[in-house]
């Protein structure tokens, strides 16, 4: 869910707002939707990254990979696809960091009420977006994230 919303926001807002828009959008969405840090980062990275890489890939295809080849040479990359990937990574890092930071603020400002049960689920971007849609409750499961549950989950789903 967070991934799709960010993907759409990054695309729509990209034509209106400055280049750092995905970071702002991801921050807001990270605050609003995800249930744990890993899912925040992953959905943020994937949402914004796919928006940037997707648009770049479309423009590249329409251009018969002419410009991407030249930019690849400029940055000492092997192929134009690396330029598309780099575009995605830059967008993705903005989205991922933004969503994670947004999520962290939320976790600090509105901590989860004690005693709410959690059910572990996978932490990948794909399963997270599916989670949002099916309403399966999630849980922070990984060791590298803090065990801050998402108190806003009910509101979000």
């Amino acid at each position, binding site marked *: 869910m967070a991934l799709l919303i960010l993907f759409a926001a990054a695309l729509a807002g990209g034509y209106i707002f400055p280049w*750092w828009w995905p970071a702002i959008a991801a921050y807001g969405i990270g605050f609003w939707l995800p249930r744990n840090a890993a899912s925040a980062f992953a959905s943020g990275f994937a949402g914004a990254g796919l928006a*940037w890489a997707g*648009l*770049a890939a479309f423009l590249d295809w329409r251009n018969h990979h*002419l410009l991407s080849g*030249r930019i690849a040479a400029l940055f000492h990359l092997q192929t134009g696809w690396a330029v598309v990937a780099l*575009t995605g990574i830059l*967008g993705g890092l*903005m989205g991922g960091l933004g969503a994670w930071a947004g999520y962290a603020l939320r*976790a600090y400002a509105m901590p989860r009420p004690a005693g709410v049960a959690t059910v572990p689920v996978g932490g990948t971007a794909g399963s997270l977006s599916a989670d949002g849609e099916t309403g399966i409750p999630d849980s922070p499961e990984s060791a590298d994230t803090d065990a801050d549950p998402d108190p806003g989950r009910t509101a979000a789903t």
Partner: protein
Amino acid sequence: MNPKSRPGWIKPVALGGALVLFLVLIDSRLGPLPSLGRFFNPFSGFWLNADDGRPKDVKLRAPGLNETVSIVFDKRQVPHIFAQNAHDLFFAQGYITARDRLWQMEIQTLAAAGRLAEILGPEMIEHDRFQRRLGIPQAAGQAVEMMKKNGESWQAAQAYAEGVNAWIAEMEPGDYPLEYKLLDYAPGHWTPLNTALLNKHMQWTLSGMGDDLPLTNTLSKFGADFIALYFPERRGDVPTVIPSGTPWGPRADSSSAAGPDSLGGFFRSIPFLRVPDPDLRDSAAGGGPTKSQPAPRSKGPASPDPLPVLPKSPTPGNGSNNFVVSGSRTLGGHPILANDPHLDLGLPSIWYEVQLSAPGIAVYGVSLPGAPAVVIGFNRKIAWGMTNGNDDVFDWYRITFKDSTLGEYMHGKQWKPTRKVVEAIKVRGGATVLDTVVYTHQGPLVLKSQERPANRNSPSMHALRWLALDPSDELLGFIRIMKSRDYGEFSAALEPFHCPSQNFAFASVSGDIAMFHHGLFPRKWKGQGRFTMDGSEPGNDWSGWLPRSAEPAVRNPAQGWLFSANQTPADSTYPFYLGSGFADGQRPKRLAQLLSESDSLTPDGAFRILMDDYDMHASELLPALLERIAKAPLSPEDSAARRDLAAWDYRHTAHGKAPALFDAWWRQLYRAIWQDEFGADSTHYQWPDKDRTRRMILEEPDADWYDNITTSPRETLGFLAARTFREACALTRTGGKGREWAAYRPVQIRHLARIDAFSSLGVESGGCGDCVNALKSTHGPSWRMVVELGQEPRGYGIYPGGQSGNPGSAHYGEFIRDWAGGKSYPLLFLRGPGSEAGAISYRISLRGK
């Protein structure tokens, strides 16, 4: 990790900080890299320059136009502009040229103005300072004032500027050309001053040359006899631009023709100049034997330290070809004109093809992005082409100042005040640099004491007298040229064109052919300005100008053909001194040979002449050189190379191996002959040129110069030839085989900002500096054009680039392959916006209010 072990706010703050840090990182420019965030943003960064190549017919509103303008693009993306009046025509030319070439237009003029540091930062300060010291921004300002006075050129430049600005106003930052995004700046407002600056840039390229300083160093080291012998002012065996036997003086066709009887009287009416400086006269006038000082071989008395010479900017050996053949010598019975200006090869190309049509104007040709009108081309009645005139209009004067304030200088036994102009060089990411340019009456003091600007040739404490710093209005010339309908109008149209002097070839549908060696020529004594001069001696100053009627020109000569290749314009009967920097190489000899042999020329044949890759330097020299090494002991591999070289047909084809070996051999030999005499600081001196050295090898096989003076045995020509042949074999051998010419001399068409990724490197093509197809590594035929002047003139042309200046467009370098292969395109000269619909790619309609 237990989250309770630290305060809860740390995490959101740290992550927020990391986010901001990341954004700042990809926002900033690191070294040469652009802001990654901005640059890669697919909504406004470089991805928007990925041209989809699907142009559509569009209708646009362009406030500022009086009437609607139709712009029709053919399959090669050449705009054919149809306007109802001259204002709208030049507006549309500015608009559409900016659409395709804006970055190039602007960067060239910023470079000329000495404003690159504004964009590229502190490392361009010395470049900018040099441009200011040359006086170029000041001179461009004066040129604008002159255009205002003339009216017609001003209106054209104004309308062009309106069009450029209309395009700029239409762009969002995402639409900016790629280079703006890469260098992270925005296009500025365009004014007629930019057009004037572009003209100064061309004047610098084509007239800002000369070897005054290195030749002066050679004079002081070797003496006047050496100069007289090894730096002849003209070569006897090269045909002049204006054929020998052409009468000088007012031409029979001009309205004020005085008739042949009065020619003597005419020239007597132009006072000849006395030669004021005895020291200079001896050498300048071609070496009077008055000082019988033998050329010292370096064991002689120490000569003064040479003034440093830095690699020159305008390429020595810049050249071009043009020729016209009258209908009596063509298959179709119509005159044929051909032209290929040789310039630095670059991307985006220096040329932009265009057809301009409005009441009273219908012209096709190439334009310079940044200036209205067409520079080389044809209309329905005439065709014209240009090569550089190479006259000496760039002289240096040694200045004696009263003191270190540079406030007063000696002239005619008097202290005279200098004029000082303060130039402000803005610097991106740095403080503005103020620089004072000191002017004497001759011109600007380009280098003050001890100053060493990067990569230019100019003596310190010398004032520069340069014709390009005088006001002139070449644009007015081009506007009148493209409107000309016959010989008389063309001749009159040249009048405002002063600098750089050009050989204008002309042909008309009415059957005329002509050649004008035209420019504004200072009246000089023989040899004046060949060496640096004493600035305190008034007799060394330029004094007035030759009248137009004294220019070397010819119309419809009996031989039926004319050509120029930057060689000496007129034979020794021509009474005025124009300079000694003419390119009397083998190229003009070969051109004359081909043209004299051709009595039924076709446009195809004319194009083949432009592509001719026969090297007369090699054909004259190589047999004699091979003779010298006939008995030299060589390895089996080198012997085989010698046999291959002996079988060479002297053609510089792309895949031949002999041309690479010969070229390497010649370079090694030339250096082996002269390097020792000129010593460690040899680059500060002018060396005898290729042609004189070849003549020496052929005619003076026992000259002293072959001996290497730094070794005790006496080297002979045969010894040097054999040694350098072995060196050349080793140099050109890769993997046991000789190297092909195209690999030895790869053609490099480099992006203007020297960005390899936007350049076309390793283009394979034939040709050589001494060939008619004078294609060197980074320099060569920048536009090949042939026009047959039948009832309907028919043109053929090609340039090594493409109409689009966008490296992300398929049209960026689309002509390069065909250009390298020697092909040409028929030039589509449309009658109206609706004609030849099958040849049209798309249309733009620009509507006024």
